[in-house]
């Protein structure tokens, strides 16, 4: 009985050693997240981020850290991202195959004018919108579009 217990304990130790030695790297990863789901999640995150950014921009204006004119520029950019986001959502829900959706989404991103407008963004507004712009960029790249 004691010998069997010793054998089991030793076997467990050997197995543990095997696992620690890198067995894990041979276990295949679960199926990757479908690209449509990735892009959808990024669009959803963009919406949440824009909501926070608008609140931040308005607060910065109210506290004198951002001029009304600078706020207008930032607001227009946020509007462009939100409007484009809704258009991307509509395309994602369409019956188009992903290959076609990608092209259309990439086109929507280019036509949004965000890449041009972001260059006119004042520094304070750019900081507040940084997270939103990063997500917009992620959406573009996820659809095979250009980087901002």
């Amino acid at each position: 009985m004691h010998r069997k217990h010793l054998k089991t304990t030793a076997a467990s130790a050997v197995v543990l050693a095997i696992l620690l030695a890198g067995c894990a790297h041979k276990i295949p990863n679960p199926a990757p997240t479908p690209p449509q789901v990735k892009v959808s999640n990024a669009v959803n995150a963009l919406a949440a981020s824009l909501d926070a950014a608008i609140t931040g921009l308005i607060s910065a204006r109210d506290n004198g850290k951002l001029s009304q004119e600078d706020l207008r520029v930032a607001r227009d950019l946020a509007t462009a991202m939100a409007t484009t986001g809704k258009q991307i959502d509509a395309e994602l829900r369409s019956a188009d195959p992903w290959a076609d959706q990608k092209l259309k989404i990439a086109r929507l991103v280019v036509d949004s004018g965000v890449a041009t407008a972001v260059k006119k963004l004042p520094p304070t507004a750019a900081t507040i919108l940084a997270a939103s712009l990063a997500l917009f960029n992620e959406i573009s790249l996820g659809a095979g579009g250009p980087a901002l």
Partner: protein
Amino acid sequence: MNPWVSIVLALVPEVRAVVAAIAALRKQYPAMTPAEIQAIVVDVTGQADTAFDAVLAKIEADKQAHP
């Protein structure tokens, strides 16, 4: 025979059985069906649209307050 050799030889079938069990655990997670993908996309984009509408409403309200 050296007792350590005896132990190692005795352990071989035990280790073999555990390694086989680990290999059996390496199951492939099935990929999502198109219908499952679409269901997730519809749900997530629906939430996004609601949030975008709220953003646009907030922008519009501020425009009205500060023309």
